[in-house]
């Protein structure tokens, strides 16, 4: 039996304790058992905990102290844009007029909510340069799949049923190829060249008249702007394919470049990254899609539009791919994103990208002295180091990440993208101060020294955390996925 220094909520439970406060029955009682066949009446109560209200607060406060968020400290988790989550966003999301409204209310009774959504759509159109936006997708991955389904509908409407391939760079996020599969396509990989960019030769090789689309992340997951993006667009469009823009990395280019201007047909955004929707320990997110004029008819329905002075949900969209999610998307997250956009304006958003890029380049130049930098050009909002040198000393990237925990940092993303050996993907974001960046740089350099002089300290890390490294092999081999008394 393992040590248990922090109990599960079930282990705090004691028969007879309660934390609920339900209303009394203020009506004559009905005999329910009369109405139901016995087989439908539950015989054993589900084992939910029986705890007092204070015990709940102690339990979850304890758990929160065993967790680490952006408010706890620096969180340079690449590809995730762990920027500050403004508090005004949280406050407005909790206003009764936003949090307690029902999706099936008469639209006339929720015009304020619809106005916000409409304004957000308009803002995102401007930021991306796309023709129309739908807020329905729940997260980035769902936006990807939504976009691919629209591309599929477009090809099919043209009687083009043989476009079975979706091309995905080897550096792409895992959701890209996975979304291609869910949308019914075959994902085909295109290689990166020695500069970390899509290899145009290889792209020409894989693109043909079976190509439905190219999914491109730009800046790519190495944090590099795809400089030959216009040539790529041309290759794909000429073959009759469509261009999908994974906008998860939009934090790098707001006000500097727009997917629509680069010839893209669909883009998804991650509002929980670029636009400060909090990450919530894994979600909820929001993944709106923007489309070109040509693809607008295929957007999910309903589409929120403005008719004279009324906001309405338009269901009369015969070419729409249909619904991708019940109701109208993750409204609460969209509201936070809107609040952020209103706080920053166009000028502020451009500064966001300016500083996100400045911070990343600064760190990169400081760290390349000790860590291998596979692609030396200026980066955008993030950069990828390789732990190759340290690996030769017996210290792996995983060890470096664990050692960072001892210094109170959340480590960068590791072992992604897949085309860099021992990858360390660092995304500082624009909300961090120079002092914070300098502190992290110093620690990284110190760890590099340790790797040379005292590798064991790094290999055995972490030393100061509440638990040590976990036995993940046993966890997967003999899964225990729930508590049993």
């Amino acid at each position, binding site marked *: 039996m393992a040590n248990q220094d922090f109990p599960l909520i079930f282990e705090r439970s004691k028969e007879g304790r309660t934390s609920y406060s339900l209303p009394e029955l203020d009506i004559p009682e009905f005999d*329910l058992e009369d109405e139901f066949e016995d087989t439908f009446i539950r015989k054993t109560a589900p084992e939910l905990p029986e705890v007092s209200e204070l015990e709940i607060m102690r339990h979850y406060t304890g758990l929160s102290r065993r967790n680490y968020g952006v408010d706890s400290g620096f969180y340079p988790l690449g590809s995730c844009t762990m920027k500050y989550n403004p508090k005004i966003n949280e406050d407005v999301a909790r206003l009764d007029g936003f949090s307690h409204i029902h999706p099936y209310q008469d639209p006339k009774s929720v015009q304020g909510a619809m106005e916000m959504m409409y304004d957000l759509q308009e803002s995102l159109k401007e*930021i991306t340069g796309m023709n129309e936006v739908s807020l329905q997708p729940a997260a980035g991955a769902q936006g990807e799949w939504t976009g691919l389904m629209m591309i599929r509908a477009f090809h099919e409407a043209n009687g083009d049923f043989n476009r079975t391939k979706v091309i995905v760079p080897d550096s792409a996020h895992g959701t890209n190829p996975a979304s291609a599969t869910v949308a019914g396509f075959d994902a085909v990989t295109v290689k990166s060249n020695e500069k970390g960019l899509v290899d145009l030769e290889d792209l020409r090789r894989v693109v043909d008249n079976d190509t439905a689309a190219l999914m491109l992340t730009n800046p790519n997951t190495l944090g590099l702007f795809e400089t030959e993006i216009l040539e790529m667009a041309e290759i794909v469009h000429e073959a009759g394919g469509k261009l999908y823009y994974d906008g998860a990395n939009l934090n790098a280019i707001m*006000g500097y470049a727009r997917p629509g201007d680069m010839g893209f047909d669909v883009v998804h955004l991650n509002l929980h990254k670029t636009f400060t929707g909090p*990450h919530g320990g894994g979600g909820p997110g929001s993944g709106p899609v923007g489309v070109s004029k040509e693809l607008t008819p295929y957007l999910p329905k309903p589409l929120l539009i403005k008719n004279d002075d009324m906001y309405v949900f338009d269901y009369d969209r015969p070419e729409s791919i249909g619904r991708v999610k019940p109701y109208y998307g993750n409204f609460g997250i969209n509201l936070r994103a809107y609040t952020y956009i209103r706080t920053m304006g166009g000028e502020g958003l451009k500064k966001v990208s300016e500083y996100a890029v400045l911070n990343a380049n600064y760190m990169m130049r400081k760290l390349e002295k000790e860590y291998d930098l596979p692609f030396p050009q200026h980066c955008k909002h993030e950069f990828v180091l390789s732990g190759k040198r340290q690996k030769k000393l017996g210290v792996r990237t995983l060890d470096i990440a664990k050692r960072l*925990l001892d210094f109170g940092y959340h480590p960068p993303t590791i072992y992604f993208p897949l085309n860099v050996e021992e990858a360390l993907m660092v995304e500082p974001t624009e909300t961090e101060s120079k002092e914070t960046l300098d502190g992290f740089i110093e620690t990284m350099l110190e760890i590099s020294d340790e790797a040379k002089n005292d590798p064991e300290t790094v290999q055995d890390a972490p030393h100061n955390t509440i638990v040590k490294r976990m036995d993940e092999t046993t966890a997967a081999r003999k899964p225990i*996925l729930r508590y049993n008394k």
Partner: protein
Amino acid sequence: MEFRYLPMTETDKKEMLKTIGADSTDALFSDIPSKVRFVGDLNLKKPANEAELKKELTNLANKNANLKEYSSFLGAGVYDHFIPSVVDHVISRSEFYTAYTPYQPEISQGELQAIFEFQTMISELTGMPVANSSMYDGGTALAEAVNLSAATTKRKKILVSKTVHPESRAVIDSYAKGPNLEIVEIDQVNGLTDLKQLADELDENTASVVIQYPNFFGQIEPLNEVKELIDQQKKTMFIVSSNPLALGYLTPPGEFGADIVVGDTQVFGIPAQFGGPHCGYFATTTKLMRKVPGRLVGQTTDEDGQRGFVLTLQAREQHIRRDKATSNICSNQALNALASSVAMSSIGKHGLKKMAMLNMQKARYMKQKLSESNFEIITQDAFFNELVVKVTGPVSDYNEKLLKKGFIGGYDLEQAYPELHGHMLIAVTEIRTKEEIDTFVKELGDING
């Protein structure tokens, strides 16, 4: 213009540019082809200061009729239940809401354990041995269940009852296009799935049967009879979508032999917020454990033998398996799963049944009152907290008038079922009082004339 989220000073900037060896930040963007370099400012509303923006958004919020000021009898998949104060206090802890997916278990035990507890609670409620960490919502969870059943059985035909939530059915239709599934809808008779048609359609090509329990009309589908039919076909899977609150009173789908149980935990601690974010759950048999979409948390030990939790069985997931993953889901609804866990902990083992029964009691009182006022009640058989009543005109007319009296009326069934003109689906939760119900029935009667 000052921006409070941007800490860099001009001095910082200069020093940093020097380190980088660039003249200006503009130089860092020289890799953007000049042809597509955006010039000028994005045409957005001017930045608003904090006070001004709070006011602006409060004004927008005030334009909406909210469920706190109006008495609502609207449900149809999204419910107005009481949310204990502890819920918001817990999810407002920024160690939770400003964190991301717990990739680093040593500093994420809080989130991991909270998810493990959520998985346990869902497993308990549904009577299924395995539950994942969350899905976007009940509708997409159901669509993923359908796709999983097709992938597992290598069959294409799916039977979906028309008593399943219409928007979930719409989402199933969209998700089914990828793998080219054939979706066959089974009609409803008197608010229940037509079992005869179901029996006729069930064949050796059927991957799964999809039933909602309680169904969209609030009625209790005979899962035992459905299961008997399914068992006549080898391999066909039984998918049940359930309101988890109802499972405080009803026998859980797991006990009827369901293979996959999904639904939404919005009923536990999550406000309606115009339809999202809510929180899908996904529960299965042990046999399907390695095919479940999304994140799973497992218990293990650290090097010192201390109990701890990790993300596990990741070989199913997109970041490892890429195009061979069982789903493309990455971000999920973790914070809302936490909210539901807190609410479920607060309600507790005994409170849950009590809360479910309060909903049922009040819905029956509504039914009795409507009946006394000579309304035609369509719901006759066993139901949970929703019932269908017939009115004499379009439901939207009624709702418009009810709104003026301070009520948010029921769901207009004609929107999804053209044959159900003048049919209103009324939800009654534990927080509706006798007085609210009495007045609502009276107002409804006045409108009826």
